[in-house]
């Protein structure tokens, strides 16, 4: 028996392997538990792709955007709020990147210890947003059926107070022709986070920054606009014949000829670097969503291409959220908090479970350049646009009218920020094929910022 019993000891290896198996199961649970348990096929918490268990989502004023009642997910009573907050909340299977998806584990109160108990017994947790749902609704209405995106945030704290993407739809009465009607093209995308648009003249801010850093006497120089700029291998047309201009006047009036000339003076490499430093090509994490990267690729440009790229045409693209951040950074001396729209996770009794505020900062321009750009954008409003759109707000801004080719109307852009200490907000507005930046996006920005300023 001694031989058998000593041979039997090899079975300890089997017991050991068995325990290794159990440890691997435990490891899988610890590492991927949230992801696997929160699968939309989990009938404890989902029904037909809808998160039916746990969790309310509230706006900054405590307005309930969505909650579960009697095993059914309900949304806000107002259709305008439902439309304005659709992309923020998301719709499982259709709109990715919503709070209901990204914060499903927190909403359900899922964890490895109690499983789905919190959801079953206490109705889950609350996720509070920094968004003002009413302001979002106003922004969506200001878009007036046009497609695009609006975002406003506090550049000192990083809180996004307004974020909408258009077109949207009412999740409660989903249009039957949503997949065929061109009016709903792009309705499943949160364009503020995931959109990539030709920047047009808003990009002159990048070119201006590059010029300020690389051409020492830029403010002393005089430029001349004859209605176009001859690059040697082609021409870049201007929107007007501006005649003699200072650098600042050229920015204020958005002179293509001068900025095409400046782009060629600084060169492709420096312009591309400036764009990269200003975050145009970066992706930022905004409450668990990663913004789309813009693109500035000047590696094979002719002088004319470079000229067009310097005024935000050619192959340039930017992301609306990134433009908002850039405005915030300029306002804030070059550095900005990374924006966020989820404030935190709270128990139904109101106790803070998880703080989701983002306190990280990002430097997009150096301090000197920031003050130059601040001055340029401010004088654009005071000397050119006028204060009509933003009374008392000490607003600085730049518009863009981005040609998109063919018969299509250009994209309409505006981004900017208030210089008031007590109103530290920056915004970006993009309207697809919205025509003139000033009359299209400017009007929307005006409505949203005035509403925010009045409610301050």
């Amino acid at each position, binding site marked *: *028996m*001694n*031989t*058998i*019993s000593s*041979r*039997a*000891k*090899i*079975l*300890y290896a*089997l*017991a050991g*392997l*068995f*325990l290794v*198996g*159990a440890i*691997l*199961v435990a490891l*899988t*649970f610890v590492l991927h*538990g949230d992801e*696997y*348990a929160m*699968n939309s*096929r*989990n*009938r*404890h*918490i989902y029904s037909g792709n809808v998160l039916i268990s746990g969790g309310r989502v509230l706006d900054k004023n405590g307005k309930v955007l969505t909650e579960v009642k009697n095993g059914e997910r309900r949304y806000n009573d107002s259709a305008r709020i439902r439309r304005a907050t659709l992309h923020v909340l998301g719709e499982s299977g259709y709109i990715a990147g919503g709070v209901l998806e990204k914060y499903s584990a927190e909403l359900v109160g*899922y*964890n*490895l*210890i*109690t*499983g*789905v*108990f919190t959801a*079953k017994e206490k109705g889950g947790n609350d996720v509070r947003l920094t968004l003002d749902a009413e302001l979002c609704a106003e922004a969506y209405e200001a878009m007036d059926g046009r497609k695009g995106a609006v975002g406003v945030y506090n550049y000192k704290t990083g809180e996004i107070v307004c974020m909408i993407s258009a077109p949207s739809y009412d999740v409660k009465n989903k249009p039957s022709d949503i997949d065929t009607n061109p009016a709903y093209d792009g309705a499943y995308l949160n364009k503020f986070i995931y959109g990539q648009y030709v920047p047009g003249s808003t990009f002159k801010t990048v070119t201006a920054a590059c010029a300020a850093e690389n051409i020492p006497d830029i403010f002393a120089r005089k430029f001349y606009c004859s209605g176009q700029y001859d690059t040697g291998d082609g021409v870049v047309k201007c929107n007007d014949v501006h005649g003699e201009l200072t650098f600042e006047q050229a920015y204020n009036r958005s002179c293509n000829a001068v900025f095409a000339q400046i782009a060629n003076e600084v060169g492709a490499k420096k312009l591309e670097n400036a764009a990269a430093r200003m975050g145009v090509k970066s992706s930022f994490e905004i409450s668990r969503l990663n913004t789309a990267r813009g693109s500035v690729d000047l590696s094979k440009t002719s002088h004319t291409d470079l000229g067009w790229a310097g005024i935000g045409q050619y192959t340039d693209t930017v992301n609306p959220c990134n433009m908002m951040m850039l405005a915030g950074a300029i306002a804030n001396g070059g550095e900005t908090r990374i924006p966020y729209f989820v404030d935190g996770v709270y128990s139904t009794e109101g106790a803070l479970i998880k703080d989701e505020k983002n306190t990280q900062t990002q430097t997009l321009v150096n301090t000197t350049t920031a003050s130059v750009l601040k001055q340029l954008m401010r004088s654009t409003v005071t000397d050119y646009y006028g204060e009509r759109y933003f009374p008392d707000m000490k607003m600085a801004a730049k518009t863009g009218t981005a040609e998109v080719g063919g018969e299509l109307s250009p994209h309409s852009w505006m981004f900017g920020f208030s210089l008031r200490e007590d109103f530290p907000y920056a915004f970006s507005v993009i309207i697809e094929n919205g025509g003139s930046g000033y009359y299209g996006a400017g009007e929307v920005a005006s409505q949203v910022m005035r509403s925010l300023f009045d409610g301050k």
Partner: protein
Amino acid sequence: MIFLAKTSVAPSRSMKDNRIPSDLTVRDGKLRERTGKWFFLMLALTIIELMLFASLVPHLEKEYLAQTILLLIAYIAVEWGYYSVVGIAMQRRMEIELAGFMLSSISIAITASVFPEKLLMQLATTVVGVGAFAFLVWFIGSVNRVTYSRIFAAVGAVGLLGATLLLARITNGAKNWLAYGSVSVQPSEFVKIAFIFVGAATLDRIQNAKSIMKYVIFSMICVGLLFLTFDFGTALIFFATFLIIAFLRSGDIKTIVLVCAAALLGGIGIILYKPYVATRFANYRHVWDYVDAGGFQQTRAIMYSLSGGLFGVGLGNGKLRYIKYATEDLAFGVVCEELGMITAAAILIAYVLLLIYAIRGARYARSSFYAIAACSAAGLLVFQASLSAFGAMDILPFTGVTLPFISRGGSSMISSWGLLAFLKALDIRTYPKVLRELYHS
């Protein structure tokens, strides 16, 4: 045969000197063991079972309420009945049975909760299992009986597997069920007992190469027949058990490696000739990529196990139970979800403890038959449990084998209890007559 019987039954000198367990006392001139602790352990078992059963009752549909409560009480009565006879009247130890009762009560509870209409069947097969256990314990008590009957067991095993191959219809990709009227059985489950019986009994003649060859041929026939029925999980269990028995017998790690290499080649050959075999396991470690296709069962088992957390959502509140064959193939997931990960871990530990019990007890075995039988039975249980539990969790390929004692199903339950008999027989105190002879000689 005579030679074999002699060497295996007669206690050796060393056994007399060292191997009488120390917690025995002599009372009234007889060898006695303290038996009071079994009463308290039975009481603890009953309390745990009552708590378990009570938790499922509120979720029962009215039409099954009375019947279910009655059957659950009947189960506890069966346990106390067994204890009265074996524990009190016969003064035997109870640890193995306690483990079996505890584990079985979980499948009783799950069946009562998920399929109240099938509870009677589950209970009946558990009672049959306990009966088979008692019978086997008695039967293998005499090595003579073991020796003379092993040829019948071998023929029976091959016959049963052959009949399955010929008569069974394909269900869920495998031909492993024999149906007669409304009763269907899985013959391979019973063959597990015969397989160990034959393996352990044959091996008493350790140096005889011919008898090894006979056993190898027998094993390969069994594994081959199982392969032909496409029941790869069970084939794998038999193969692993064969390796354990072959090693315990020969101690020859080189041969084992050789056999494994041959099996690997065979496996590769099968995959080359019958590529669809491999496609059955194509989802392994990628179940989330096939979440609504080949990974359906595993992904559900994982997500619902996680939903249960450490303490479970409670019997009757689970969702995994609505997946087809969950209480059989995904029993581990059902336990995780409804009873919690702590209970699930305790079950896994129970299997390991049975194995450790066999390994440690092998020293005290009265002959190599008992040592090999107990170790290979425990090894089989652990191997099968890992295929079942870790297969459902996508740590191992998913083969759909049952979780011993826990999965619903009569064949599996009877087989689990039958295998437990080999562990019970390992303990020399199970046979006081033998022990007394040992003590007095």
